[in-house]
């Protein structure tokens, strides 16, 4: 089974985690001002790259904390994990 490196607990089995989709999607700063298109973008549209993807995971049956990861969607390889208050690492 794939091991996922929780930034608090270290490597644990994938079944302990749940996926949270794309990371760094901020709630709209001025929701009342959004057009329908902008609401659609916030609610429905997410990046879907083949390659490196910054995404959220939660260690559900461990520390139960959220964290971010940069994972290669082509190989499923975790290239970096970082806590929510940490900046997104730059990976070439």
């Amino acid at each position, binding site marked *: 089974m794939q091991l996922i490196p929780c930034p608090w607990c270290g490597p644990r089995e994938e079944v302990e985690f749940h*996926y949270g*989709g794309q990371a760094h999607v901020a709630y709209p700063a001025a929701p009342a001002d959004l057009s329908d298109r902008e609401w659609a973008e916030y*609610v429905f549209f997410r990046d879907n790259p*083949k390659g490196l993807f910054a995404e959220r995971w939660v260690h559900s049956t461990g520390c139960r904390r959220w964290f971010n990861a940069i994972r290669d969607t082509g190989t499923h390889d975790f290239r970096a994990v970082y806590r929510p208050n940490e900046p997104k690492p730059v990976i070439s």
Partner: protein
Amino acid sequence: MTDMDQPSTPGADLPDHPDFLWRNPDPKPSYDVIIVGGGGHGLATAYYLAKNHGITNVAVLEKGWLAGGNMARNTTIIRSNYLWDESSGIYEHSLKLWEGLAEDLDYPILFSQRGVLNLAHTLQDVRDSVRRVNANNLNGIDAEWIDAQGVKELCPIVNISPDVRYPVLGATYQPRAGIAKHDYVAWGYARRASDMGVDLIQDCEVQGIDIVNGRVVGVQTSRGPIRAGKVALCGAGHSSVLADMAGIRVPLQSHPLQALVSEILQPVHPTVVMSNAVHVYVSQAHKGELVMGAGIDSYNGYGQRGSFHIIEDQMSAAVELFPIFARAHVLRTWAGIVDVTPDASPIVGLTEVEDLYLNCGWGTGGFKATPGVGSCFAHTVAHGRPHPYNEPFTLDRFTTGALVDEHGAAAVAH
């Protein structure tokens, strides 16, 4: 002295290679229509462009080999018992085409209308299922609600004991549903499309889409640039990658979807059984393997493989529903990449780029739609406006809110 003693060239006495089913041409500099993606949808679109609309200066560009993606990986279930009118329209159109497809293509596709049972395991499942049966009947689609005993009569190997974690309370039944031989479907379409003049070009990866003044004019490929009057995207799991090339944002997430087959067994399973609640769907292929599908892996992935615990969950569900499967052996497992939309309905139609057409978002359920979407998408491309059956499935609906929410009928098992 016998023949065995004579030295001979290995293979010298074999019969000639059978006729190839399609030509294998090099790309021309220019086509009226380029279809990106040589899977079921791309091949069907090419076939109906030629047959229904007389458009034959067409190329299908495939980065791998024909029908080697989801067309080779799906569990071949064909049905049309969806909830909403919009879905009923296109899926039932497709089912009717399936019923005449072998004759139309003059090719055996082994379409077997053995019926599909969609099991209900909770009272809410029962209510939703009965509602869907009523909706189907109003749309002229064959569907009936049957109780657990009726399930047992149709498929004797299903365990209907009340003493299991998710007891079978009943099922919806669509008798006209069934399975087909997926490879034969692709080959049948490819053969006829090629005969009518369509160029099927394999090992030709689209790497860029050329747009001038808001109009598509061609594609960049691993075999050089090709000009096009119109471009139609049938990229399935890679639709986001293609749309990105054209600067179009699509609300898709690509996930691995796993399936498996058992070793070849005697006929034990006369129909198709699907269960959204326990995440498994099973039929028995013509050759004898039990074919089972799972739910999608939760994470985005393009790797055409998934996590093993999904297979374990699927097998535990299968063994509870079908106790005799406990002694069957898994022969192989695999995954395809499915492009999932927020409302579990496809996106088929025009884009903001002129002459660029999009067919994607079929998620876990694209195979059954192959003839239906092929004919409707060909109509859309030929006329520059959607066919009535795909008109509701616009990209724009995510802005207008006119969603076609088929999570209930599609869910895990589309």
